[in-house]
């Protein structure tokens, strides 16, 4: 797994110039490789790890939209 992560990191450095985006990509790579080290790792587990690495951006957007929807409904 360490080898896989190293290779991923190296290739990501070559592919991404933007520092901030590279850090984000590295964060995703670390999260999914950690999930992959689980003996029962599954594609859905990797998916969840990658989505989780996004942080709460989805929840924030969802909450903001939901809050606006609620306000529109007058709740």
């Amino acid at each position: 797994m360490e080898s896989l992560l190293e290779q991923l990191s190296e290739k990501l450095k070559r592919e991404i110039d933007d520092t901030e985006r590279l850090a984000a990509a590295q964060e995703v790579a670390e999260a999914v490789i950690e999930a992959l080290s689980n003996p029962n790792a599954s594609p859905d587990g990797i998916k969840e790890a990658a989505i989780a690495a996004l942080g709460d951006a989805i929840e924030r957007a969802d909450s903001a939209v939901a809050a606006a929807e609620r306000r529109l409904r007058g709740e």
Partner: protein
Amino acid sequence: MALDSWVLTSVEARGYGGIGGNAQTLKLDRPVVVLVGPNGSGKSTWVSAIEWAFFGELSFGNDFSIDELRGNRAEAHRVYMHEGCSETEVVLRLRRGSSTMVWRRVRRRQKPQATHDEVTCMIDGSPVAADPAEVLGITPDIFSRAIAPRQTSLQALISSEDKDRNAALDQLFGIERLNTLTVGLSRARDELSKRVRELEGRFDAMASRLREEVARRFDRRSDARSKGLEAGIDAGELTLEGARLLIASLSRALSVDLPTALGNISSLQTAHRHLRSAADQLWSRPGPQDRLNRLTRFKTAVGGARDRWQNAIDAFKGTSATLEDLRVGKGSEEVVRNAVDEAERWLNDIEDQLSAASKRAAVLAKARDWLREHEHAAGDELDCPVCERPMVAQELEHLVDAAIEALQAEDGEIARLNTERQKADDTLRETKEKQRQLERATGDASDAEEEASARRKELVDALQTALDMWAAEMVDESEKPIAERCARALKAGQRPRRRGDEGSEDDEAVDAELRETLAAGENVLASTREELAKASKETEALRERVIAIQRLVEFLEAAEQLDALDGDVAGDDLMAARVSLQAIQEWKETLRIVTSVAGDVSVAMAEERVGAVSPKISDWFGRISRHDRLKGARVYVETSRTGGIVKNAYRVRAVDPAGSWEVAPGPMLSGGYQTVLTVAALCALADVDAGGHQLGLLILDEPTQSLDPEMSQQMGNVLGVSAPAPTTVVTTTDKAFADAVVQGAGAGRSKLVPLKRWTAAQGTRFEGEGE
């Protein structure tokens, strides 16, 4: 093979499957152990005991599930237990360097489900979590396919190249995790795209609704403003401060203490509710309206009764006057009655006289007729029929004629008497007519008197009802004098009465009291009407002010809601959602790059992985194969990119030494060589630790299927010479194959474990001491 693998050194079992209740131990103290025995002797039972100890049940792939036996009830889980044993126990002992592991599973007949098993794992005497995946990196799938593959799995290992191949087989080649990684990342990207689409859809829909809602609320505010102006509010008062002033003013007018400070719309609404309630109470409070109603009822009931009474009295007086006039003009009833009697007597007397005269006339006529009918000589005397004296007949005849003349002549007695009778008859009729007139007038007067009496009682009842009404309802001060007058009138009206009192001075006094009472009531009624009109105007004015406040509060609420949309929804929520969506889009792009990179890396690593395995398979295949041309094997990776998902698949082929002839498992490769290719692949994978687990064990259960004796012996020899795993267990019914394995491995590195034929009485048994 990795140095850190655990090596299984012994299997101790009792009460498991065909193994009886006495504990037996299979020592795996050599790198190669061959279990040999007839069919049904228990070889597979021993190797399956290892899998059962780790997982609590055996994996039969898609061919069999224990749940199919009898649902998931207890009895189904007792199939592993030896009949007659109350519990089953398997103990595995493993070694890694100087460390030892003892894995133990016990199942009791009373609670035979795997979840109730007692499972322990001790490493160097210390307990650790008994999780095969955690401790050894093995799962039921990995075990049944990489460590102890069954016959069907052996075939599938090389022949299944279709898209639905089992992931556990991919894991054997070390590419399963790479596929898991790329598939998982692709799913994450798809999931993210889906979520983003969904969020953007909601965002767009909400933005659209927001525009509509803003327009709606704007219209509502405009409408509320118009209504406020219509309610009399100045445009400058359409503010929170304006509402406070209006509410304060009205609360003073209504003497209402407001419970809350007027700080926001909600408090204004609360204040408005209180004021509206107070105005409603004022409107419904008993006052002029009730008094008006009572006085109207009094006027209608008592005034009406009094009018009817007075009319009855007038009627009575009229009939009494008529009667009196008749009495004066025609005499009293007694006088008239006497006159009638006198007239009757007179008439009777005349009638008697007339009758007597008529009789006489008849007698005389009869006498005259007799005289005329009998011849009489002159001078004959006859007895006068009247005086009975003797008379000359002629004289007598003259006398009779004269008498008849006196009676029947025009001025005779009978005519006179008839005239007299007519007079008497007229007199009697006239007096009787007077009598009837008197009787009729007397009856009319009596009826009128009764009517006046009844109306009087009605009046008394009306007075009593009015007094009861005032007694029952709240009486205004202005009504009290009327009620008192009413009571006096009632008292006067209830005084004892005699016949002929109707219309008397006493009645006039009562009526005078009544007139004054009704006049007083009319006065109060008029003043009440004025008072009510005034109160209605005041109440209406208050209500208008309440409505004005309501309109103002509605306007402020509409304005606040419009502002909230502009501020909270459009300003804060939408902006926050837009920023978050942009962040997710950024992440989506990042994830796309990571997925692409991971795909590339996984391809490279898969190629590297199978590249390491491929020479090993070729080596094993070459050593076992007795084929004239197919002396080697090759494994390579095929990469597919479907829908952005990078997936690697291995391909196994038998090849000639030059690599120019490549044969895929299938019709072009015999069953025996497919078995050789399979065993070669398993041995190579065990050799390079491709399974990714830490259990140094390979079990080849009857690996000589479809092999001819020479090939079988060749395979046995090769397996013995090059044991592929730290511990390799081979089961076979082929004694020659078993001997070849042991011969290839040498006595020091291998041992033969023969099993006796299984019997119901003794179960599975080893031959020889200690086994």
